[in-house]
């Protein structure tokens, strides 16, 4: 890593940093932070020296927090799963980095589309009509999204 080579004296901030620029960057710390976050949210193996049980507890806590946020963004979906929401969410998203509440819920809704009740399916259909989501990057408004949505409502069978 070229950045690592620049900072062999890791405890000494560079003049650039004293001028209020980028953060001091001891390479060991930067690499350790990256490895830790990758292990916590992206399915990488635990970095050396950490208590594995504590990292497991942290992973679970992060998934619970994401599940709570996704439930607020996807109320019909969360209501459908009820008591199973947190465990269903965790089972699907463990090892997958957070995409934000909208995407996290969207990914889950798509993956479990076949199981959804009418309300949860309608919630998904509404988002699909309004936004274009490639499953990888932030959803973007669709052209004619409102028209698609109206058409979908007109053609959806009444319950």
């Amino acid at each position, binding site marked *: 890593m070229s950045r690592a080579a620049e900072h062999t004296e*890791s*405890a*000494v*901030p560079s003049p650039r*940093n*004293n001028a*209020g*620029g*980028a*953060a*001091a*960057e*001891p390479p*060991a*710390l*930067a*690499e*350790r*932070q*990256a*490895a*830790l*976050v*990758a292990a*916590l*949210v*992206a399915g990488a193996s635990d970095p*050396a*020296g*950490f*208590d*594995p*049980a*504590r*990292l*497991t*507890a*942290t992973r*679970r*806590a*992060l998934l619970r*927090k*994401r599940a*709570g946020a996704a439930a607020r963004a996807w109320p019909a979906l969360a209501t459908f799963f009820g008591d199973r929401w947190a465990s269903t969410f965790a089972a699907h998203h463990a090892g997958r*980095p*957070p995409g934000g509440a909208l995407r996290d819920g969207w990914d889950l809704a798509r993956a479990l589309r076949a199981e959804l009740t009418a309300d949860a399916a309608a919630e998904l259909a509404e988002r699909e009509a309004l936004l274009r989501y490639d499953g990888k990057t932030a959803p973007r408004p669709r052209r004619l999204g409102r028209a698609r949505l109206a058409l979908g409502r007109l053609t959806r069978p009444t319950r």
Partner: protein
Amino acid sequence: MRGKSGQGNVFRARPVAGSAGPLRPGAALVVDGVGTGWRAEIAGWVAAAPGVGFCEVIAESIVPAGPPRGVVDLRERGLPVVPHGVRLSLGGTDPLDACRVAHLAACAEALDAPLVSEHIAFVRAGGWDAGHLLPVPRTRAALDVLAANVARTRTEVAVPLALEPIAALFDWPEDELTEPEFLAALLDRTGALLLLDVANVYANAVNRGQDAYAVLDRMLDLIAAERIAYVHVAGGSVRHDEADLPGGALYHDTHTDPVPCEVLRLLTHLVERVPGVPVMLERDGRYPPADVLSAELATIAAAAR
């Protein structure tokens, strides 16, 4: 409204060491009394809650050009509102996101805030975002990173900055300093104020097998009382469903449970040592009815008296 430039000058002119008297003379007193976190879900309760002297709002949740009506109402009533950042990643080795620094500065300006606060934590690294506050190792290298990022933040934020130590479920194997030592070194180095969360002190002590009172006392021995800008109190619980983990169940600082008696007792101990320190309740979900929140705030006020 209090002028923010005046506030900053008054604060900076004051000594940063010494012991606090009964009314905290010389303290960086920028908020006062008992407060609470403003959240949209409990805006009605916050607006009507008796005895609230200040509020805090999550900086990332507001648009400075148009803060929520409830927050504007509080400001019009003269209540200080402190922008509380949660995503700046001051402990991260990645360069600070200029937009996030500018946002925090804009929040302070829009709310004419007497100070802002952020965490001693990092939230992203190596292209991944944890979406959560993660602990930094208590090392000199991490102090360098934090000091540089605090200095960078202060180039744009015109009011004092208070730093909050987080509750963490794990420690780094690299740790060289205890938490009180690390905190004292960081405050010395940066000149920042302390936002002391007694629930976090409690959580960390329990999960590290330490005596929370001893940890708190050590912090107060090393850090002058007037450096404490204000205090957080929040609820939490032991997750018994984690008993399967080696080491057993942990205490989680959830902000969605009632404040445990143990945390209230620790708060009382803190206030005995730092009389008059401003204290606020943080609640972030599973909101109980208004009367339950009011009772909890009254309990905190009583514990802090």
